[in-house]
């Protein structure tokens, strides 16, 4: 360095104002999507509609009238495969993958000892929580879209495709039905916002990522079990899983938005409460990992 004040120029220059964290968010997404684990989970999710479609195609001896919703519709229209895949993945597979990502968010950094270096950088504890949460939301969206798109593609490949008959009896064109598939994927993403916030909070409690992941997944199952018991009916509207399968209203003409709104409001409540809990816990936590 020949410059008289090396800090003023070149590699030693500093920003005078602090960046908002877009660069760090990009880095967080890069780390998330560079992990083989993330791709393995997305591939496993993509396999759900593919397996359904192949199984139905092989044994398409006609409708038995049993089995999960939308399965019967597949043989008539391949565009339903994506919706059938989401229906089957929502109770277990989706919460499982979201539990892994959200549960790993802080505890995983503590486990690799990178948490202390991020905080000393300094990333700022609030900024770290916000970025981790947003990355989890991006993963939820990626997971729901993966299910949808894989389902639509395999449906087009294996079954006839045409105008879709909605639950209200109306028929819409292929373009409109693709938009509705996208809306259902968005519905599933919104449904997982609450669980992601719960996972983020649990992740601030421990340095063991596996524990945080397992606890998040178990909670999602407990919520669904409680939701199915008539004894806990008073609790049902407050469970984050209550509206998980309530996207049928998006298959009516005109679209019935109220369930989307109720779901979004409930999820927002969970985000606020568990976001506050995560902040309360993490902002004053001694980082000893």
């Amino acid at each position, binding site marked *: 360095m020949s410059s008289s004040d*090396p*800090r003023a120029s*070149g*590699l*030693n*220059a*500093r*920003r005078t104002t*602090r*960046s*908002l*964290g877009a*660069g*760090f968010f*990009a*880095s967080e997404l*890069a*780390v998330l999507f*560079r*992990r*083989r684990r993330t791709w393995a989970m997305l591939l496993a999710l993509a396999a759900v509609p593919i397996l359904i479609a192949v199984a139905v195609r092989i044994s398409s001896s006609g409708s038995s009238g049993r089995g999960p919703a939308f399965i019967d519709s597949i043989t008539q229209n391949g565009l339903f495969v994506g919706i059938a895949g989401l229906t089957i993945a929502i109770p277990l597979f989706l919460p499982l993958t979201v539990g892994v990502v959200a549960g790993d968010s802080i505890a995983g950094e503590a486990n*690799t*000892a*990178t*948490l*202390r*270096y*991020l*905080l*000393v*950088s*300094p*990333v*700022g504890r609030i*900024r*770290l929580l916000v970025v981790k949460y947003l990355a989890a939301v991006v993963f939820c969206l990626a997971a729901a879209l993966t299910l949808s798109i894989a389902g639509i593609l395999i449906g087009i490949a294996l079954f006839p495709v045409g105008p879709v008959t909605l639950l209200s009896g109306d028929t819409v064109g292929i373009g409109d039905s693709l938009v509705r598939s996208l809306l259902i994927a968005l519905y599933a993403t919104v449904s997982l916002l609450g669980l992601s916030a719960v996972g983020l909070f649990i992740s601030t409690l421990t340095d063991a990522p596996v524990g945080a992941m397992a606890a998040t997944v178990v909670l999602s199952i407990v919520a669904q079990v409680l939701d199915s018991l008539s004894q806990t009916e008073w609790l049902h509207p407050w469970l984050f899983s209550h509206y998980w399968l309530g996207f049928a209203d998006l298959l009516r003409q005109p679209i019935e938005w109220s369930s989307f709104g109720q779901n979004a409001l409930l999820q927002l409540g969970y985000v606020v409460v568990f976001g506050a809990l995560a902040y309360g816990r993490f902002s*004053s936590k*001694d*980082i*000893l990992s």
Partner: protein
Amino acid sequence: MIDGSVAGSTGPAHASGLAIETTALTKRFGRQTVVDDLALSVPRGSVFGFLGPNGSGKTTTIRMLLGLAQASDGEISVLGERMPQRLGSVLPRVGALIEGPGFYPFLSGSANLRRLDSADGFAPNGTRSARVSRALDTVGLGHAADKKVRAYSLGMKQRLGIANALLAPRDLIVLDEPTNGLDPQGTREVRSLIRSLADEGTTVFVSSHLLAEIEQMCTHAAVMRAGKLVAQGTLDELRSAGTTRVIVTTPDADAAARVLRTLGLDPGHPDAPGPAVTATLSESIEPEDIVAALVAAGVRVRGFAVDHASLEDLFVALTGEGFDVVQ
């Protein structure tokens, strides 16, 4: 407690002269006090050795200095600003290696550094890649930049940790046990790196449980024992605080001991009938006067030596010997 001139000075006038200052810093975990009433004074521009056996509270202190852990009591100022209140403006000027490196094993060395650099809101994006490769070259990891950290050896990870501390221009660098896992060559490189950082005016705060390491590169040192600061000052101050002995080699041991006693020294009783008599030198007597007195008394002096206690003796005296981890 040995108090150097630096440690004695407090007050706002000196705040700018100190890179790190703590007053009554205390950390309790439950009922256990891990750091007890610590008053550290690290002058700017110094290479400050933070010595103490394992479990003496060094790393906990460093975690508090960097805002990772909250102090139970006391105050911290780093680079003239209060911590952790001013964390956002202090930490960008501080590089740190804390209790071993921490990296994502599935990312390459340079990807890891870019990731940590992006977390610093004041680090410019435009120069990131150039700064990362400069830091990697500085620690000799340029050839392994694109290797996954999973494949790094312990020493390479340690180097990468040091590279992380050097990503941006720093006013203070905190290195917790920087030579852990390094081979002798790596240790020498770290030592010369610390010296070159100090030459550029960076304050370097190095913790270690190895005295030799501190003695070779530091200008100042503090010694911890069981969470308490037992000594602090320049290396010379610490050395002079140790005792100095005179050793007289003579066949006339009894006569020599008598002469030393008349001079006010305490040679004790030579427990082995050896040819040497030793006594602790007090400041009021010059060594040459002792020799003169011995010769005048007819003692056949075959050898005379003034022996300064080494820092190691002092370290052992201050922290205890052996492997006991003080609780």
